[in-house]
């Protein structure tokens, strides 16, 4: 039970984040400064990122019974930390302009939420999963409702609270049932006994867990909260919810179902397939009627989770690599889109600038911002030369390889519908300038935000044009590599995937 040095090294990213949180809190206690807090947070994220390096040579490291640090963790954590850094930079100017409260606590919450996400990514046990999830959710609550003067934000926070609480309860009850049925809370150990304890408990437990996770991922029958929360939350926080919270929950889902005990659970898998189809179709359809960019992004993220689940459903072929790439693409683009909203918005105003009408003529007023937003929308729509295109193609490859006919049809339908509303925004931006909204100046303090957007845009294009830069590391991050549940069949298919992977002309 005692930890070795190697274990500690493997857990270093989490330790750094936790320590950073404490230091930041102490820092805030003695000197309230927006800039100092931002610097500390950024530094902490970077150090944590660097701490992925020392352990990377000797992966996987299992820290029984709570953590499993493997390549998949490394990849996902890097993604989360970088996304978090992006959110930090995007929010720096934004929260700096808040008048109702100092911004330093915002960074504290951001750091705590990131810590929660990272804990989740490394979890090999329901306890750590749950702890991470709740650390994330509770910190997010604070972030959502941070602009106290905005009624919308408070309301969104309240909605998120009620739904997060309810979904946590569902999840927990499911976990409790699994525990009662199997006597262990560990992902890996739960699987070994899974074969002979399939029964009512497990069935009910799966249903409850899926409901809980469904809420967290906001996939279709459980999606109602997402648009409201996205609309009410400050724009950078919207990006955080859309990217980091979903990414980490999805990763756990992957760990549990693909590499862990859930893979035997065929009922759950078919339920996920149904949710995926519903998400793709309904998410896109519902987005059609929206006039608010944040709401559109919310529905689009619902749909994107659906696409992602297609990859999830086909782990035997390229599914895992596809989902990893998709997550990266989704993260970059979604952050970019929310970032543009954030840069155009004044946090002291009662709302962010998210009504589509406000974007009229943006192309001619702020060509670069409009260009970046267009790029992000194009990527979300899955059109080259962006990451979104490669991601969608990758997911489709996986789906075709696993003969997922219905989900693929839904994917295509969804994509076509999706094109319509993404293009609508682009069209509005290309329309002649309207005088109604006047000229909105970009805040001079937002240099960090603009620069971040630039980097994101470059990433979208470069990784869309040269995807192998990302695909190569992803292939080393297969969670099945260190799982004892790899069936003989899967193992062989895994091998063949690798062989194919190495094949080139």
């Amino acid at each position, binding site marked *: 039970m005692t930890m070795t040095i190697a274990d500690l090294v493997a857990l270093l990213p989490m330790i750094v984040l936790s320590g950073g949180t404490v230091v930041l809190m102490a820092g805030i206690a003695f000197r309230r400064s927006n800039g100092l807090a931002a610097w500390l947070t950024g530094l902490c994220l970077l150090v944590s990122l660097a701490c992925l390096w020392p352990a990377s040579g000797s992966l996987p490291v299992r820290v029984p019974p709570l953590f499993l640090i493997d390549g998949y963790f490394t990849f996902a954590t890097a993604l989360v930390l970088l996304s978090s850094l992006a959110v930090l930079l995007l929010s720096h100017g934004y929260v700096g302009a808040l008048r109702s409260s100092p911004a330093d606590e915002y960074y504290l919450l951001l750091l705590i939420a990131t810590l929660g996400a990272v804990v989740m990514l490394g979890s090999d046990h329901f306890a750590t999963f749950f702890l991470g999830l709740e650390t994330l959710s509770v910190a997010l*609550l604070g972030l959502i409702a941070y602009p106290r003067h905005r009624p*919308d934000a*408070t309301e969104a926070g*309240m909605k998120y*609270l009620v739904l997060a609480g309810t979904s946590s309860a569902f999840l*927990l009850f499911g976990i409790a049932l699994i525990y*009662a049925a199997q006597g262990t809370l560990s992902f890996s150990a739960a699987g070994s006994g899974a074969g002979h304890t399939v029964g009512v408990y497990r069935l009910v437990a799966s249903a409850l867990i899926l409901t809980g996770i469904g809420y967290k991922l906001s996939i279709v029958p459980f999606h109602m909260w997402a648009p409201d929360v996205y*609309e009410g939350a400050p724009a950078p926080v919207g990006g955080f919810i859309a990217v980091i919270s979903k990414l980490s929950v999805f990763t756990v889902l992957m760990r549990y179902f693909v590499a862990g005990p859930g893979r035997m659970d065929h009922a759950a898998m078919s339920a996920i397939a149904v949710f995926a189809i519903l998400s793709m179709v309904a998410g896109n359809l519902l987005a059609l009627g929206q006039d608010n960019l944040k709401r559109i992004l919310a529905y689009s993220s619902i749909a994107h989770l659906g696409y992602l689940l297609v990859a999830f459903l086909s782990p035997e072929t390229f599914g895992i690599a596809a989902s990893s790439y998709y997550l990266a693409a989704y993260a970059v683009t979604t952050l970019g889109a929310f970032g543009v909203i954030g840069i155009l918005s004044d946090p002291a105003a009662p709302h962010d600038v998210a009504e589509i009408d406000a974007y009229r003529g943006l192309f001619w007023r702020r060509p670069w911002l409009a260009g970046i937003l267009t790029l992000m929308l194009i990527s979300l729509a899955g059109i080259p030369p962006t990451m979104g295109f490669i991601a969608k193609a990758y997911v489709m490859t996986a789906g075709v390889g696993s003969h997922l006919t219905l989900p693929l049809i839904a994917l295509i339908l969804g994509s076509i519908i999706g094109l319509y509303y993404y293009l609508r925004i682009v069209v509005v931006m290309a329309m002649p300038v309207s005088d109604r909204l006047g000229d909105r100046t970009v805040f001079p303090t937002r240099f960090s935000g603009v620069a971040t957007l630039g980097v994101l845009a470059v990433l979208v294009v470069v990784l869309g044009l040269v995807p192998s830069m990302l695909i190569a590391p992803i292939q080393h991050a297969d969670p099945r590599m260190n799982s004892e549940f790899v069936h003989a069949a899967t193992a062989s298919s895994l091998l063949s995937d690798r062989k194919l992977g190495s094949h080139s002309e």
Partner: protein
Amino acid sequence: MGTVSPQNAILLAAILFALGLAGVLIRRNLIFMLMSIEIMLNATGLAFVAGGARWGQPDGQIMFLLVLTLAAAEISVGLALILLLQTRRPTLDSDTGNTLRG
């Protein structure tokens, strides 16, 4: 001292859970909704303890502590939000909270 079988304890937990869920769905007052969520969370805590009892492990109780902590954290934040809401609106009826369409 009579013992309660884990089965029955879980059944009780399930009933509590259902009551809490019903509360969340039916109640319109935010405070009551929060309380219902607490009931659901505590029901899961009970289920964990029952599970722990079945296997004779402390894990269930540990999970219960964690659940309690979560419930505490959530309720504190919830209370703060409700206070914020109430300074703007006289009522805590969740149906009136519809500035956001949804």
